[in-house]
C-alpha cells in the first residue's frame, strides 16, 4: 500500500512494542514478543518508554467505588480462618519468589525491655521469635541490647550471594519497613538501632531480612524477596 510508505522503512519491532503496551497484539504475537522481551534489553527499554509515557493516561480511568462484596470475597479467599495454614502457605510463596533466595533464615530476637533501673548493665535477654523452614542454610540470631542500643546479629550458618546483599528491616505495627542497613551473613554484626527505629522498638517489632542488590535497596523501601522474618517477643 503506497499509503504505508512513511512507516514501511521502520523496524517492525518499533511498532510491536508500542502495540504490545497498548494491548493491540493478537495472542500469538503477544506471546512471541513476551518471550523475546525476557532477554532483549533494547526491547525492554522500549517497553519501559511506552509504558511510562502511556501511564500518564491512567488519570482518565474514572474512580468508581467497588461493591462491598468484592472485599468480603477477597478476604475469604486470601485469608481463610485457618491462619496457620495461611502462614505456611505464604512462607512457601516467599521461598518460591526468587531463585536467588535460596536462603531461609531463622531469626531469633531477644529483647531487653527498656525500663529504668539502677544497674543499667544488667543485661537480660529475653527470647524470642523464630521463623523456620526446611531447606534452610542460613540461620541468624538477633539480640537487642537496650544498654548499648544495638542489635547483635549472629549468622550461625549461611552463604553470601554474589552481587547481592542482605538487608535488615524493622517494622513497627502498620508502618513502612525501616532499613537497619546491610548485614553480613558470614560474620557477626552489631547494628546500632537508629533513633527513628528505636522509638517503637520492643515486643511485636518485626525484623525482616531481604535479599537486595549490592549495597542495599537504593530507595529506602525493600525491593528484594524476604528471606526471613520474625517478631520480637518478650518472654
Amino acid at each position, binding site marked *: *500500500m503506497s*499509503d*504505508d510508505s*512513511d*512507516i514501511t522503512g*521502520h523496524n517492525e519491532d*518499533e511498532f510491536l512494542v508500542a*502495540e504490545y503496551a*497498548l*494491548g*493491540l497484539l493478537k*495472542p500469538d504475537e*503477544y*506471546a512471541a514478543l*513476551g518471550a523475546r*522481551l*525476557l532477554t532483549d*534489553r533494547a526491547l525492554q527499554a522500549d*517497553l*519501559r*518508554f511506552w*509504558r*511510562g*509515557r*502511556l*501511564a*500518564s*493516561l*491512567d*488519570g*482518565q*480511568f*474514572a*474512580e*468508581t*467505588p*467497588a461493591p462491598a*462484596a*468484592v*472485599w468480603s470475597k*477477597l478476604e475469604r*479467599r486470601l485469608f481463610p480462618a485457618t491462619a496457620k495454614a495461611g502462614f505456611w502457605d*505464604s512462607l512457601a*510463596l*516467599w521461598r518460591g519468589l526468587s531463585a536467588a533466595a535460596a536462603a531461609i533464615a531463622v531469626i531469633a530476637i531477644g529483647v531487653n525491655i527498656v525500663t529504668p533501673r539502677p544497674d543499667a548493665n544488667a543485661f537480660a535477654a529475653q527470647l524470642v521469635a523464630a521463623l523456620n523452614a526446611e531447606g534452610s542454610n542460613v540461620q541468624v540470631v538477633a539480640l537487642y541490647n537496650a544498654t548499648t542500643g544495638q542489635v547483635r546479629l549472629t549468622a550461625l550458618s549461611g552463604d553470601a550471594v554474589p552481587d547481592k546483599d542482605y538487608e535488615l528491616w524493622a*517494622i513497627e505495627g*502498620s508502618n*513502612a*519497613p525501616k532499613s537497619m542497613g546491610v548485614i553480613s551473613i558470614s560474620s557477626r554484626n552489631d547494628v546500632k538501632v537508629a533513633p527513628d527505629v528505636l522509638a517503637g522498638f520492643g515486643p511485636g517489632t*518485626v525484623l*525482616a531480612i531481604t535479599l537486595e542488590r549490592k549495597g542495599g535497596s*537504593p*530507595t529506602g*523501601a*525493600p*525491593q*528484594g*524477596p*524476604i528471606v526471613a*522474618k520474625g517478631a520480637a517477643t518478650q518472654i
Partner: protein
Amino acid sequence: MGSDAAEIANLIARCALRDRGAFRDLYGRTSAKLYGVTLRILRDRSEAEEALQEVYVKIWQRADKYVPGGYSPISWLVAVARNHSLDVLRARKPQSDDIDLALDVADAGPDPEQSAVDRAERSRIDNCLDQLDGEKADAVRGAYLDGFSYEELSARHNVPLNTMRTWLRRSLLKLRECLSA
C-alpha cells in the same frame, strides 16, 4: 501527590511482607481506581467485579515484585488491572501473566528519569496526542483506555482494518517522536 505515591509504595512494600492491614489499606485507597479500570475495559459490572478480585489476588501474591522507582506505584497497580482486564477481554490464557513480565522488565533496573518525569508526562502525552488528528488520537486512547482491538477500532472509526493499522502505527511514530523530544 508525591506523598500519596510514597504512601502507596509503602503499602505495597508491606504487602510484600505479608501485612494484611496494609493490604486492607491499599484496597481501601486504590480499589475505586482499579474498579474504574476493569469496569471501563470490560463494560460489564459482574465481570468487572470478578476481575477486580483477581487483580487484588495478584497484587497480594506478587507485591514483592513491585520495584519502587521503576514504575510509579499507582501506574503499577493500574497496569495489573489493565493487563488482567485485557486478558479477560481477549480470552487470553490467564498464564500470559503480564505482571511477571512488567516486573521482570522493571527489575532490569529502575529508570532514573522515570519518576521525575511522571507529573510532567501527564500533560505532555495530552499535548502530543493533541498534535495528532482528533480521530487518530481517539484511536490511541481507545486502545489504551478501553482496550479496543484493531478490529474494534476499525469498526468504530469505519475504516478498513489495514487502514486502521497504518493510521495507528503512523500515530505511534509521531507520538514517540513528540514524547522523546
